[in-house]
């Protein structure tokens, strides 16, 4: 099965703003694909290009092998769930869902059957007569889903459909969306700035920034093997260590030199030559922290550190520690009744260590991306 919805080198500018800047993307049939990125990175514009509300300045859009770049929205077999839902306020729930079928002049009996099936799917059979103004946020969202799905689109486009809902409802709708995707088997193109949503729903994710795609991959690939500092910092937390490749080791490992820090072993899958500067990304939960020095191992990186801040988060605790010239964030799950040692506190001397495979050498690094990481508390705990 090849690509189903394809963007080929698509660009779109609004005046001086380059909203989408040469994006190529291939989405497979039946896939749940997410566009993930910060606000203003061009996600909505990508959806509008797919829906036909915008025409690209450059590049083509293909659907099921056909070039749809010039087709108006009503002639594309894609449907959109708008960020604001955009339900028709003058029509009842029933008429909202029937809208697409009625415009398509389908037989009355068929319309009735299809709308009723949709109402069952969204469990709102008893609300069919209500107007959108009388519905709750979650109900509106479900009607928007039904109104789009009833047309059996080839691709369903969803623009931050959960952004307007509160946390609990969002979690429930997340599960519902997932179930609906499994049930109807339609290709979903899902736009969100929420990494949690993208991670939990998607088969694959494209991380976008400033109109470009930074990385495409499964949620695990994106999280575990970020290619750029932006991806590493935007998806979850991370530590960036500015370093230089010192020498190669056996196999694909190499030694990195970091100023004010012991040398570090890292997996050099990108084959970066000695002498080159490189940024290492280490996720805070991959770093271990303890009072006792771990047993030495050739693949383990160890550094002494001093705790500068402790932030209790419930399931986990965040430790900001200073190791040499570096501030490092460590995330640790605690087991209240399986304490291996007495709790680590502010100003304690500790050891931190991580396995060489858990550090990622980044291909691209932009200085500003460090700011995306929850910034360390400055000057706290320093007399």
């Amino acid at each position, binding site marked *: 099965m090849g690509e189903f919805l394809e963007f080929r080198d698509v660009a779109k500018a609004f005046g001086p703003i380059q909203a989408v800047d040469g994006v190529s993307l291939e989405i497979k049939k039946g896939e749940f694909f997410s566009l993930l990125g910060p606000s203003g990175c061009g996600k909505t514009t990508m959806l509008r290009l797919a829906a036909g509300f915008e025409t690209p300045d450059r590049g083509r859009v293909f659907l099921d092998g056909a070039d749809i770049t010039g087709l108006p929205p009503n002639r594309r077999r894609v449907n959109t769930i*708008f960020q604001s839902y955009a339900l028709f*306020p003058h029509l009842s729930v029933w008429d909202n869902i029937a809208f697409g079928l009625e*415009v398509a002049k389908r037989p009355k009996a068929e319309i009735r059957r299809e709308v009723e099936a949709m109402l069952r799917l969204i469990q709102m059979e008893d609300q069919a007569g209500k107007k959108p103004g009388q519905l709750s946020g979650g109900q509106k969202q479900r009607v928007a889903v039904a109104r*789009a799905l009833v*047309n059996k689109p080839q691709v369903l486009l969803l623009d931050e459909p959960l952004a307007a809902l509160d946390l609990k409802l969002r979690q429930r709708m997340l599960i519902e969306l997932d179930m609906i995707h499994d049930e109807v088997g339609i290709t979903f193109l899902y736009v969100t700035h929420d990494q949690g949503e993208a991670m939990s729903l998607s088969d694959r994710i494209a991380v976008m920034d400033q109109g470009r795609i930074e990385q495409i991959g499964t949620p695990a690939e994106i999280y575990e093997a970020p290619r750029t500092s932006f991806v590493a910092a935007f998806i979850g937390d991370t530590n960036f260590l500015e370093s230089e490749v010192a020498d190669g080791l056996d196999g694909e490992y190499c030694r990195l030199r970091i100023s004010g820090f012991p040398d570090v072993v890292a997996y050099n899958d990108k084959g970066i030559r000695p002498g080159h500067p490189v940024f290492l990304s280490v996720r805070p939960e991959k770093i271990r922290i303890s009072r006792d020095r771990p047993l030495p191992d050739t693949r383990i990186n160890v550094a002494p550190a001093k705790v500068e801040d402790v932030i209790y988060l419930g399931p986990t605790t965040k430790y900001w520690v200073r190791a040499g010239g570096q501030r490092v964030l460590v995330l640790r799950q605690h087991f209240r009744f399986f304490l291996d040692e007495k709790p680590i506190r502010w100003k304690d001397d500790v050891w931190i260590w991580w396995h060489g495979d858990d550090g990622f050498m980044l291909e691209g690094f932009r200085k500003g991306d460090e700011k995306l990481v929850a910034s360390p508390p400055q000057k706290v705990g320093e007399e």
Partner: protein
Amino acid sequence: MKKKIQEAALTIPSFVWLLLFFLVPTLLVFVLAFRPPDPYGGIGPGWTTATIRDLARHPYWVIAWRTLWASAVTTAICLALALPSGYAVARASPRRRNLLLMMVIVPFWTSFLIRVFAWRSLLHPEGPVKKILVLLGLASPQTPLLYNNAAVILVMTYTFLPFAILPIYAAAEKFDFRLVEAARDLGARPLQAFRKVFLPGVRQGVVTAVLIVLIPALGSYVIPDLVGGPSSEMLGNKIAQRVFVDRNLPHASALSVVLILAVLAPLLAVLFRQRKKEKPEIILEEGG
């Protein structure tokens, strides 16, 4: 309670204004319709229903019918022009929007009477419009552009169009145009989206536009007088004739009463329907 009194106090000036300059004259007209005329243009003693009953014997039906359809046609044309205009203005960028609104309002800077006279010279047999039409072969030199029903409807449309555009624009400005995109997304062609989503969305503006055009159109007097011919007289002209030529105030009043009732009936019908529609929705919202 105190707040209510204060609020009521605020409405007193406008209430007094309406009472003095709208209600009292209207009532006066109603009263006069039931008084006999005297031969000198004044009011005779006593009361009578003869004037009202006499109306039916005059050949007013033709004129009433013409008044009605000329006003209806004017309203329809105004709506047909105002809907796309209101849509376009609301969708324009803020800067262009102000410019366009300005263009709608600018005619009001010139006296209405002068503008009607301007049309007279425009449509004059020797006037520029006629010359251009003849030059383009769209009209023969004999085609009259002035002093007929078409001229009356043209100038009425010109006069009332801004009054139709403004309420529709006001409604369109509040309209969420993403709904049009949603309709297009669901397969509606541009015109279908306009009809099925935009039109219901600006319904209130359309109702206002119809009332605001139809009612003054029904009472037109200057326009048919100046650009209409003998066979394009409207009720307004007849009323004026009864006052100025026949000097028969009761007769003029009786005609006015008929016109007022004709105008009031659809207005009340619309208002009543809106009331009825609003109430159940409020109850539902409280229940749900």
